[in-house]
């Protein structure tokens, strides 16, 4: 990938702020999301869910439901093939055990959390479907449950899977447990490191499960024909992921399943897996009619992935001058009903922002009777950063050092090796720290009961497989097909990069997100990979087109391609003895048929060479000394963004991530009752930030480009959620003079801390 052209110093379109191509439909209500879809003869699907957190399913009697007029199909786990655990989904970023995903979509033998699907119906109306659910008779044998991750680790804890033996230890245990996996990152000599330290700080930090909180509930429509071919329209972060996961779970060929991406109403990682689509496909196959399933908000909370609760034990050794010499971090992460917490990423990111010569980070993946966790924006990194950045704040206090200075001393720099082993290149942490330091916020005075918190965050960013098609139409306009759902404005950035590379106006480039039969394979929209990976493919396709345009113009003029210059949509003949009128792109395209056929390039590639990015956030809060209420007064977020293709949408990512992180820090959490049932499964009591909870969020885009990408792109979407948890916690500490190590920092918890001795 290093053969890409160097970064262009001056851009015409990259870095400008045009209106997004899908914008008008979104402000007029025309944009079609999955739940907006309707088809002739369509049935309405609904899902019956376990009221128990842990129960053996003794029997399911569907006869009465099937007998209800208007009910066209009822399904249970019996209707799905039993999958071998070795079956994994192709092309995904992480390793997905399809047997677990199948059992998560529809409980097999046991319900592992409250809300776990046990049966589904399709009926001619939503209300008949609802009635039918009541008629499905499920006999459960409730079992002891465990929702707390530390409780789940105990040797006598209720066991979710009797065949789970901790993986990743030097010796695999012979006794089953809820500890699915162990991970470790290590370098140097930890004992030596701590022995040499002037100060050793130790503390435990905890976080609760939080939900991605996208406003659009999961929804899909599936239509299966009698010959087995099927179409699915759905809201997801990856139409190819939906195709491949669903095909494996229901047992069909990938080519027989065409998945059309609807507009997606937010994902943040939560729509990187399937819940509804396999059920809708099987219901449609049984009923012979299209089936639509739309989750309620309650179902979204109870049955789709939150992120992990976590317990992190941090031990850091520093010298008096602030140098960190040793770090030992242990991370325990809740996976929910099936293995698969992002704890490995916690072990890789926890100390990734700092140069720590002697360190060890360990991680434990723990199953509990709670919904299977799903990715949430920079999975695991916010939890780990909350622990480490809170600890560093305390260490700075103990050393009498400015928290910024402590970070400057230890910040990773180009050429250093990250804890996970990779040498760091093209990174901009020092520049980002400096950007915050230079901002007026950094020195602004604080009033009584106010405090300021600083925190740093790291994320890898992502590359991976992307396929795109760029076609020049006969009139010189450009059609672009990508295969990754547009959540945060990727159609705009795609069109901008193509316009830049082809030298045509932005308005002449029209991008779409194509279905799985209309463009080559693409990985999901996730991991902050789309602008980087698709961008590489789009620019490469555009460059191939430019070569082709020069060739075609040369053919028109009867000169070789190297005698043709092309810029800004105009081909100019360079042959010294010729006085040809320059040709407009449209004129060349109009003659394409006569000189070799359509001007269209598909580029499918595997994007490597991704560069990580860092965020540095500064937060001011005021704490009501009588009630413990926190007001976020001011928030400034600086981030190394590589290069911002569309700065407004980069700012939007930073602001949105910061807001989510603030919610995580202050109020969001899953509350389970003694029966293991979620008590706050609605937006009223889940308490995400509302407009009046937040100040303006000031953003500083620091551009340290990644030279691997022709425009310097790194990826920006994930890192903004990493620093806020600690930035807020450190600000609250500064305001009240006491450290709270457990999230969320609810008024009740802060009040208790303030009134305690």
């Amino acid at each position: 990938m290093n053969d890409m052209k160097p970064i262009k110093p001056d851009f015409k379109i990259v870095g400008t702020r045009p209106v997004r191509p899908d914008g008008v439909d979104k402000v007029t209500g025309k944009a079609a999301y999955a739940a907006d879809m309707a088809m002739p003869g369509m049935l309405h699907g609904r899902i019956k869910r376990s009221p128990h957190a842990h129960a053996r399913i003794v029997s399911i009697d569907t006869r009465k439901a099937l007998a209800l007029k208007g009910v066209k199909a009822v399904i249970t786990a019996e209707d799905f093939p039993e999958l071998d655990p070795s079956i994994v989904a192709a092309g995904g970023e992480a390793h997905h055990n399809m047997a677990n995903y199948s059992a998560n979509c529809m409980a097999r033998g046991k319900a592992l959390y409250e809300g776990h699907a046990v049966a589904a119906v399709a009926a001619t109306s939503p209300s008949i479907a609802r009635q039918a659910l009541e008629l499905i008779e499920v006999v459960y044998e409730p079992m002891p449950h465990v929702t707390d991750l530390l409780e789940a680790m105990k040797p006598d804890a209720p066991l979710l899977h009797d065949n789970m033996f901790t993986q990743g230890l030097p010796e695999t245990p012979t006794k089953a447990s809820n500890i699915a996996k162990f991970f470790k990152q290590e370098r140097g000599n930890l004992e030596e490191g701590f022995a040499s330290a002037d100060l050793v700080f130790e503390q435990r930090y905890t976080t609760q499960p939080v939900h991605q909180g996208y406003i659009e509930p999961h929804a899909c429509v599936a239509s299966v024909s009698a010959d087995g071919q099927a179409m699915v329209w759905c809201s997801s972060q990856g139409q190819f992921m939906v195709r491949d996961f669903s095909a494996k779970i229901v047992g069909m060929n990938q080519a027989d399943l065409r998945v059309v991406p609807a507009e997606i109403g937010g994902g943040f990682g939560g729509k990187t897996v399937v819940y509804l689509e396999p059920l809708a496909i099987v219901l449609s196959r049984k009923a012979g009619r299209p089936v639509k399933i739309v989750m309620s908000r309650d179902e979204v909370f109870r049955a789709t992935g939150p992120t992990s609760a976590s317990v992190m034990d941090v031990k850091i050794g520093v010298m008096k001058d602030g140098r960190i010499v040793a770090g030992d971090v242990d991370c325990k992460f809740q996976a929910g009903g099936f293995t698969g917490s992002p704890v490995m990423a916690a072990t890789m990111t926890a100390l990734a922002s700092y140069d720590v010569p002697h360190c060890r980070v360990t991680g434990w993946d723990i199953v509990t009777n709670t919904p299977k966790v799903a990715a949430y924006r920079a999975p695991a990194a916010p939890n780990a950063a909350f622990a480490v950045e809170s600890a560093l704040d305390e260490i700075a206090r103990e050393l009498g050092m400015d928290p910024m200075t402590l970070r400057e001393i230890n910040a990773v720099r180009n050429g250093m090796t990250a804890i996970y082993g990779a040498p760091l290149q093209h990174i901009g942490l020092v520049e980002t720290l400096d950007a915050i330091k230079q901002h007026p916020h950094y020195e602004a005075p604080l009033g009584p009961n106010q405090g300021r918190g600083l925190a740093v965050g790291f994320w890898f960013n992502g590359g991976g497989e992307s396929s795109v098609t760029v076609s020049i139409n006969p009139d010189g306009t450009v059609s672009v097909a990508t295969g990754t759902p547009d959540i945060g404005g990727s159609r705009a950035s795609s069109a901008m990069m193509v316009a830049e590379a082809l030298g045509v106006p932005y308005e002449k480039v029209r991008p779409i997100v194509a279905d799985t039969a209309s463009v080559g394979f693409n990985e999901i929209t996730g991991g902050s990979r789309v602008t980087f990976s698709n961008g590489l493919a789009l620019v490469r396709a555009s460059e191939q087109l430019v070569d082709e345009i020069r060739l075609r113009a040369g053919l028109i003029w009867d000169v070789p391609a190297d005698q043709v210059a092309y810029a800004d949509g105009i081909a100019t003949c360079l042959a010294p003895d010729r006085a040809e009128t320059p040709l407009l792109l449209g004129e060349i395209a109009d003659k394409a048929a006569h000189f070799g056929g359509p001007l269209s390039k598909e580029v499918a590639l595997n994007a490597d060479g991704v560069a990580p990015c860092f965020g540095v956030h500064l937060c001011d809060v005021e704490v009501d000394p009588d009630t413990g209420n926190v007001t976020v007064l001011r928030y400034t977020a600086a981030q190394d963004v590589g290069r911002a293709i569309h700065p407004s949408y980069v700012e939007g990512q930073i602001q949105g991530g910061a807001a989510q992180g603030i919610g995580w820090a202050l109020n969001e959490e899953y509350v389970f009752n003694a029966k293991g049932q979620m008590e706050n499964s609605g937006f009223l009591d889940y308490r995400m930030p509302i407009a009046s909870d937040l100040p303006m969020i000031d953003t500083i885009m620091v551009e340290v480009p990644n030279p691997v990408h022709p425009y310097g792109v790194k990826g920006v979407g994930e890192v903004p959620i990493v620093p806020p948890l600690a930035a807020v916690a450190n600000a609250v500490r500064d305001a009240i003079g006491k450290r709270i190590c457990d999230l969320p920092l609810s008024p009740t918890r802060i009040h208790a801390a303030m009134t305690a001795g």
Partner: protein
Amino acid sequence: MPVVRVTSSFCDSFTGGLTEFEVAATTVRGMMRELGARFPGLAEFLEARAAVAIDGTIYRNAWLQPIGPDSDIVLIPRVGGG
């Protein structure tokens, strides 16, 4: 000969905790085959779970990527995003 390092425990169960290996391979795939020959099952595991950093650039699926005699090679667990 290029040296392959791993700072994570993610393939410990195959390597018995060893963290540095000399290989003679000239491509990522060759390296995986060689490691697989030494540690049964490791090649398949790495194919599914590992990314490889070669002289600072991270490759995830690029089995054909060349590696030179002085290359710095690190095996990294693959990470998904949100």
